[in-house]
């Protein structure tokens, strides 16, 4: 597992600003800062795994170089060796809105 000290904020300050604004909006409307790039249930217990930093962050940064929304990146991305890119959703299907049994 990746050493958390090797996980960094994305050096793209404009992107980080937009992601933080999204987190703030979620904090205001849901009461918790869930991932701005995922559709939340609006119920804290159901979204506990996607409250930033999400539980998938470390594994995604380790495997792909960035987390799902790319707020967090690896040292390779910071050093310009690697670029951020869209990555597959690691959140299990049975926890996703519309797919979870008690969705909506």
């Amino acid at each position, binding site marked *: 597992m990746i050493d958390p000290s090797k996980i960094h904020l994305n050096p793209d300050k404009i992107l980080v600003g*937009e992601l933080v604004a999204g987190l703030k909006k979620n904090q205001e409307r849901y009461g918790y800062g869930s991932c*701005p790039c995922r559709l939340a249930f609006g119920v804290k217990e159901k979204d506990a795994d996607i409250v930033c930093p999400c539980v998938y962050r470390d594994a995604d940064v380790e495997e792909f170089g960035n987390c799902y929304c790319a707020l967090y990146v690896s040292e390779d991305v910071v050093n310009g060796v690697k670029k951020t890119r869209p990555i*597959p*959703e690691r*959140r299990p299907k049975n926890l996703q809105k519309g797919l979870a049994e008690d969705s*909506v």
Partner: protein
Amino acid sequence: MQHVEGKSDKKITLYALSTCPWCRKVKTLLNELGVAYDFEDVDLLNEEEDAKTTKEILKWTSDLSFPLVIIDGKKVIQGFQEEEIRKELA
């Protein structure tokens, strides 16, 4: 669903989240390309519309993931894949 006017050679639908900068980048790209498209910010829908839209999205993809672009009811592009979108709409 909101509509943006432009060249309408292809039918383009974008499912997005209002809080997601990558979704915003897709909108900016589509605007730059001057194509017509329909879009929905799914997080702004009420519960009933949300359930209906989520169901529609899951006809196209196995994960609830944004941004999602559907071109002519067959090509599905997940994530801000700039080159792929440009290529499809060239």
